[in-house]
């Protein structure tokens, strides 16, 4: 039997699913990157690595952007590259300070497009007071890249007294999402496949550091945050409960989803719980403070549709359950395979 397991589970070549952010990505990280680069900061697998340099708590993160198409309703690769990295810093409780930007450009790429994208990066950083302080440019021959890829890194400072961890989560805590789910993934898909959906679905792509700062400044007991990007809410919640002694239950009725996104998901057979977001945060907060956090979020234009969607339960431990609209229940597993490649 062992022989078959090895035979079946060995990765022989990378497939698109290894980049989905779902199960196979986790497997690749666990089997290759973690053992190879083995160190404490990495092994926590947070959205950012948390480092202590001479008493200063730093958050450090990187992300590469290969979204196709480069421009989509609600954003473009430039806005995405800045927002995504800022959000990875913000959800670990860091105040984003500096970004780097690396450009891999295909020979022949139109200058006017590059100008638009770089302008969009400038505008997005201006929203948050973050500076792009270092960068790199590479050009590859025509056919070796698909237009433009961008890599950004970010560093931020974490308040000394702040502590966010899945280990702080207790039974009874509440789960909040800061707004509607699935907008980014569906916006990119409908643009890429020219689905001609009207009114067009807009990506939620936005930097969340300002809004997150407000909830951290309140005295609410926030336990953990994560941005539900690739793999969507379902994957993020599974990452939270994975190997823990608690589970999470969410109520389908309370999950905010735009009508356009719902309709497109119905037509194409996608589950919005698995669709990527680029301007949303999932927050685990003590029950006592849940309403307060939700109210603070709602005052911000990026958190207008925030909602409490569920809570932390003792059983089944390590699992995410969904109470369906008709009163049934089911397990919500992590994303398997790749629903939508190259959305970020």
């Amino acid at each position: 039997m062992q022989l078959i397991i090895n035979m079946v589970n060995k990765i022989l070549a990378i497939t698109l699913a290894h980049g989905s952010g779902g199960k196979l990505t986790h497997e690749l990280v666990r089997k290759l990157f973690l053992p190879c680069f083995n160190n404490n900061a990495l092994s926590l697998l947070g959205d950012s690595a948390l480092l202590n340099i001479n008493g200063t708590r730093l958050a450090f993160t990187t992300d590469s952007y290969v979204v196709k198409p480069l421009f989509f309703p609600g954003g473009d690769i430039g806005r995405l590259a800045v927002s995504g990295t800022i959000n990875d810093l913000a959800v670990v409780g860091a105040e984003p300070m500096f970004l780097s930007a690396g450009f891999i450009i295909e020979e022949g790429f139109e200058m006017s497009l590059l100008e638009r994208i770089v302008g969009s990066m400038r505008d997005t950083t201006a929203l948050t007071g973050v500076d792009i302080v270092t960068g790199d440019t590479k050009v590859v021959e025509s056919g070796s890249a698909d237009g433009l890829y961008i890599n950004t890194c970010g560093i931020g400072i974490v308040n000394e007294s702040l502590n966010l961890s899945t280990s702080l989560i207790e039974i009874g805590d509440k789960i909040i999402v800061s707004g509607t789910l699935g907008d980014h993934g569906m916006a990119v898909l409908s643009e890429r496949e020219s689905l001609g959906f009207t009114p067009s679905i807009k990506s939620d792509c936005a930097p969340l550091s300002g809004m997150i700062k407000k909830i951290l400044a309140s005295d609410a007991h926030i336990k953990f945050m994560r941005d539900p990007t690739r793999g969507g809410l379902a994957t993020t919640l599974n990452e939270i409960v994975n190997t823990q002694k608690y589970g999470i239950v969410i109520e389908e009725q309370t999950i905010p989803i735009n009508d356009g996104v719902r309709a497109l998901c119905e037509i194409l057979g996608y589950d919005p719980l698995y669709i990527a977001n680029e301007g949303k945060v999932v927050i685990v907060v003590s029950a006592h403070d849940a309403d307060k956090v939700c109210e603070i979020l709602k005052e911000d234009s990026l958190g207008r549709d925030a909602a409490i969607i569920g809570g932390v339960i003792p059983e089944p431990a390590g699992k995410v359950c969904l109470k369906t609209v008709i009163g049934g229940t089911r397990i919500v597993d992590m994303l398997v395979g790749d629903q939508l490649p190259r959305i970020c």
Partner: protein
Amino acid sequence: MKYIDEFRDGAIAIGLSKKIASLINGHDEITLMEVCGSHTMSIYRYGLKKLLPSNIRLLSGPGCPVCVTSVNYIDTAIAISQNTSAISNSGRDVLITTFGDMMRVPGSSSSLEKERAKGASVTVVYSTLDALHLAEIHPDKKVVFLAVGFETTAPTIAASVIEAERRGLKNYFVLTAHKVMPPVMKALLTDKELNLDGFLCPAHVSTIIGSRPYEFIARDFHIPCVIAGFEPLDILQGIYMLLEQIVKKEAIVQIEYSRVAKRDGNPTALALLDKVFEPCEAEWRGLGLIPGSGLKLRDRYARFDALTVFRISEFGIRIDSEIQNQQSAINGCICGDILRGVILPTDCKLFKKICNPEHPVGACMVSSEGTCAAYYKYGE
């Protein structure tokens, strides 16, 4: 959302659930088969089993097109993608187009997803018209559409063939593995291991074929049939209608999904099917060859048939059923028994241990409509 939310009303669901429970209170166990994979997924997605009494047993049938597609077919598609064929000799002029579900279905040694990673041109499309469009804008490529599915999808493929002819496209081909439902339902009824009390008949297949093709089931086998929609209230109502027949010892074909499905089906789609396709024997994964259960292109459209054009038979990739069964015996996959509804995925020794959606051994784990995938994903 209009026309959707009405069929997902929690209060009505609870009401139906109570009516079902009181109707068969104290009755012996009743076994119903939902033939179609979309019903299976809906049952799990909405947690419907929790709303049904314990004396109802729901079995999933062979109505997941990906699940019943033979190993042989996948191997053929891969062979075409590799261009080990007569009309082309470089590996770059064939573009395989397919619905997404087919990508990860295991053939005898590989899958389309793995072949794409190795450099084969394989593109996921949402419609046959997308495939036609690709053929039009890439006149240097031979665009092959993997035509898999039941009566619901077959008319769209028929339409694409007629449209390709109208546009004069010479580089559009279909590799057909279309199947039709009634013959396989008949085959299940003659299976001695399976004691069914009723069929929940497919929704979308029935919008095409209507209810007449099921009438022999009620008449000759005395098994009640109800055509039900895919929304949770449709399914509960469909089950209730089946149970009413069972309690009254009746067997007729009823249509719950009356807002779309009619007794005579969709005459336009049926005419299109008849124009382009003719019935043939078809190979079902796990079930073997079933007479009259497939559709092949009529001779008039032979030039669109990838199987003929790429002269696959000359390449000796055919795996006969005997070898397939040996392979199944070696790796322990019991997809066939699961597709027949004889056993449950949890009875399979590979389930969750070796076979999971990332590393599927059998097709039932690959398709989003597959029984094993549903059990795995929704934690039955």
